[in-house]
């Protein structure tokens, strides 16, 4: 792969946008899952009365299903927005 193609691509404004979007999305979703999980753990550690009756089971099921959905949303974004931008860059700079 000729170096200047890569270099051109990496330094292009489109790539900077792609890179920034990716970082933001990764960290946002990571932050979400960390908050959900550790929030749940700390809730139980300090205030378990909140999970009276069946609430606990719904909460836990919610986290399991929610984690999967969150993963799905990220992948949907990656497959549509991100890949679109990626294909545009590949087409423009790697012909």
């Amino acid at each position, binding site marked *: 792969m000729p170096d200047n193609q890569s270099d051109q691509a990496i330094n292009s404004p489109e790539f900077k946008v792609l*890179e920034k979007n990716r970082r933001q999305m990764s960290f946002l979703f*990571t932050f979400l899952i960390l908050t959900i999980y550790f929030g749940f753990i700390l809730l139980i550690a300090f205030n378990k009365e909140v*999970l009276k009756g069946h609430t606990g089971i719904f909460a836990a099921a919610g986290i399991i299903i929610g984690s*999967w959905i969150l993963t799905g949303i990220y992948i949907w974004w990656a497959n549509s927005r991100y890949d679109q931008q990626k294909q545009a860059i590949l087409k423009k700079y790697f012909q």
Partner: protein
Amino acid sequence: MIFDSIFIQTYSSNLGKPNILSISMFFLFVCITLYITWWAARKTKTTSEFYAAGRNITGFQNGLALAGDYMSAASFLGIAGMVALKGYDGLIYSIGFLVGWPLIMFLVAEPLRNLGKYTFADVVAFRLKQKPVRIASSVGSLMTITFYLIAQMVGAGGLIKTLFGLPYTLAVILVGIVMTCYVLFGGMLATTWVQIIKAILLLGGATIIVGLTVSQFHFNPFELFNSAASKYGESVLQPGSYISNAWDALSLGIALMLGTAGLPHILMRFYTVPDAKAARKSVFVATGLIGYFYILTFIIGFGAMVLVGKEVIGDPASGVGDKGGNMAALLLAEATGGSGFMGFIAAVAFATILAVVAGLTLSGASSLSHDLYVNVIRNGESSEAGEVKVAKQATLGLGILSIILGLIFKGQNVAFMVGLAFSIAASANFPSLFLSIVWKKFTTKGAVASIATGASLSVLLIILSPTIWIDIFGNEQAIFPLKNPALISLPASFLVGIIVSLMSEEKSAQEKFEKEKARTYLGVGSE
């Protein structure tokens, strides 16, 4: 309470009696998988085939295989047992094993697939000095694998002895030989298909248990939960003593969540798919299946609690119980579907162990051959055939070692080793992998320091923790109060990695970081 123990009668069950149906089903599984191994062997000649199944695995297949690699017999039986005895606490524990998967997706899966070739050390060492980083990564990797493997082999021996009445030694040797065959002859291709079959059997079997169980409660799980509450009190539906200590809970949570993202045999699977997009699909499928699995184990645990009873499951006096309630799922299978069905589930549990240890062995062999032999000893130069040959020798060696370890640790309480494996994965493997991907200024010295810190602190602190210091060494008070070291070892590993990197500037690594962006983000030039 006293009366319970005096009057307990042994529970009438066929568990432990050699069961022709069960042994035949297991035998069938072994035959089919060995046939697949023979089929795969003809297609396993090159390194890309041995380590990565020629990168021809689809996203969906890989998702099944990942789930298969991850769902061990220990988690199936152990978590069902924990739920059966402690109720809701078991569910809290299982969630920890699930949430690492989204994290893999957001932070690791794609860059890993784009930057690496066969192992995660490929990625860590991508722009750093090969030898020191490869050695360090391999050590972290092999430590994780070894502890995990010991726990699995000992578990396998004990399980087979309980289920089929075979002697422990024979069981361990049998498992060792069969799984070594899978890897030695069929490489990643065979291993992948063994994982897929096992995942289908395990999820299918567990689904049937759940179906049979809830059918006795008008197909309403909540009726089941309420029944458990009326039998044993509301507390079974609430968090109990599991999270008594916030620090303990956090530490374990960190180990499980971030450890999942640092397990070598899991990470290795991402190289079997053609590209990053397929890698994404793999995680999606795996996460869904694993989440479904933990919902199933939860219902199974409660089913066992109600239909079999805590007294039977948790008390050795009943003849089929043990402290961890490990027979809960099997006893429930018997209670709802008869001895034949229990036999099927027992065969599935055994198959599960075979699949997991095969995955671990392949991962260990790849670390020894690809990371250490080719990249360290041979300076990155080795012929295809040469590398495959070494990989196979490493496989054989590891197979033999796993049998020996299984025999040495017979009868020991090795459950803590899984926690330790996760802790090392979280503290030694994950930080260096993550920093290498996202941080420009990460250096060779930083990587080595981070891995060394994470690994040694994990081991040291676990020795000083209640699990070993009190329970095994018999001391009064543990020097390190937490059961899991991750709360300390993970941040320490990150900190050391960052500080040492800042102190040891490596211009070439920084330049490569920029240059590799096309590969990281666009997949340009990836293997």
